[in-house]
């Protein structure tokens, strides 16, 4: 089973620079949250719900100058091939949670909502590679749906290196076998908000992997933008104009 055939096809028939099927919906849970989204990146499925800005439950969380962002990450036991119980305080989960909190603290205009907390709840239903990227995209959309002021989209994607060739948007099997770079890019720029590389790659190959990943992020940003506009148009068409 070759991950990347000599003809340039991957296991799922994609080429090196093609992203997986990207589906997203916003305002999926209008009654239970202020903003919500559902993202499918290939087989990775994530639900995100945002509550806030609201009064913090703990007085200690209230920051006098800006909003506090709180991320809760719940990965379902059935999300991977083998059913596995995950504790919330597992180091890997805490690392992802902290990374997401710190990423969005930068792109949300926190100074507009002092003494409040923005609570973000993530539910991972299925994992097939690109988890951190999927979570980031889901949060971006949910925050937009909630109407929280943001400077720009944060679009995230993974890319990897197989032998000498970079591959975009890795699925679960590919992630196991090669080093994966996850990046979160601000809008259409080349500014990186989030960056995680967990396995070795040769330093001289970093540039090519980074380049394809940034291009991929821009594509994801466009797809997310389309969905936001589509949803916005539908809702505004329901308004009765006098």
């Amino acid at each position: 089973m070759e991950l990347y055939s000599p003809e340039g096809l991957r296991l799922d028939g994609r080429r090196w620079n093609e992203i997986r099927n990207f589906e997203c919906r916003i305002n999926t849970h209008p009654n239970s949250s202020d903003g919500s989204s559902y993202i499918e990146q290939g087989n990775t499925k994530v639900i995100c719900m945002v509550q806030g800005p609201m009064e913090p439950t703990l007085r200690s969380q209230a920051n006098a100058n800006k909003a506090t962002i709180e991320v809760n990450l719940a990965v379902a036991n059935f999300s991977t091939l083998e059913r596995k119980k995950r504790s919330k305080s597992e180091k890997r989960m805490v690392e992802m949670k902290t990374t997401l909190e710190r990423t969005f603290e930068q792109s949300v205009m926190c100074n507009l909502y002092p003494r409040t907390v923005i609570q973000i709840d993530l539910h991972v239903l299925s994992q097939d590679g690109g988890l951190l990227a999927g979570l980031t995209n889901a949060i971006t959309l949910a925050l937009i749906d909630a109407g929280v002021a943001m400077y720009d989209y944060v679009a995230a994607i993974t890319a990897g290196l197989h032998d000498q060739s970079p591959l975009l948007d890795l699925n679960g099997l590919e992630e196991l076998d090669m080093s994966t770079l996850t990046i979160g890019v601000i809008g259409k720029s080349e500014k990186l908000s989030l960056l995680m590389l967990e396995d070795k790659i040769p330093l001289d190959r970093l540039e090519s992997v980074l380049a394809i990943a940034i291009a991929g992020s821009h594509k994801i940003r466009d797809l997310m933008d389309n969905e936001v506009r589509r949803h916005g148009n539908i809702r505004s068409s329901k308004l009765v104009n006098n």
Partner: protein
Amino acid sequence: MSKNIEVSTNEKTYFLEALKSGIRLDSRAFDEIRQPEITLSKKEYGYVELDWGTTKLAVRVSAEIRKPYEDRPFEGLFMINCEISSMSWPHFDNQKNSNDEVLIARIIEKAIRRSNSLDLESLCIIAGEKVWCITVDLNFLNYDGNFIDAGCFGVMLALHHFKKPDISIVNGGEDIIVHDVNERQPVPLSVLHVPVCLTYSFYNPGNKESNLKGEDDDEIYLLDANLLEEQNREGSIVITLNKNRELIQLSKNGGIPINANVLLELSFKSMKIVDRLTEKIKEVIKKHEAERYEELNLRLLEVGADR
């Protein structure tokens, strides 16, 4: 002294203004690390005390024989314990792990354990039954910024310094005799590569919006921040490289966005420092070995046994 002292506005402004004028408060260059001072234990193998500027830590490596994991019968066990007590800084809680502590532990683990810097197969004694379990205990004594870089350097030093007791297998694999260090020369560990972590901290002198939206890259980045610099920073990235120009891991856990070009530039610049630090480890260990050799007069007793 109080637990959660915030940095005063005065101090913060002074620090940022100095940075804008190109001055770092401890008069280092922006891309200069603090020089580590190393104390290797003469009495036992695997104990190192490291002074990274004023950040102090002690690393200890110990080994014991255990049963391997069932799905990996040919590999030894390797664990890194990295708990921070309130001795290093009252801000750290003794009871629970704060987010910062978890990040520090994860990054050190990714850099050293996940990257296979220690050859686990060489730790196997009897496949499926007995393997060496190497435990590294990182004790942080004083916090003046940058536990990650200092911790990673300390662990690699200690792993190079450590020697495990020699063993013989008798009775056709039934019993193992662990030889005392005085009986037979202990054996060093097989380290495959030396990862070196470097932490860059970012500061934004302009306002947030221009950083996010604009094309201007006037973020300031400092290598190896001390406590004051860390408390005032707006973002950081940990780049782990080894001498073979391999990027072991990259971690940017949020914080202020940086341009991709800057990232590449920093990674390339870091290579020189990584080379220097790797050399330093080898040099210090070699010198220490030579001293030990002299002390124990091993030249007279050397039997040409090759292992």
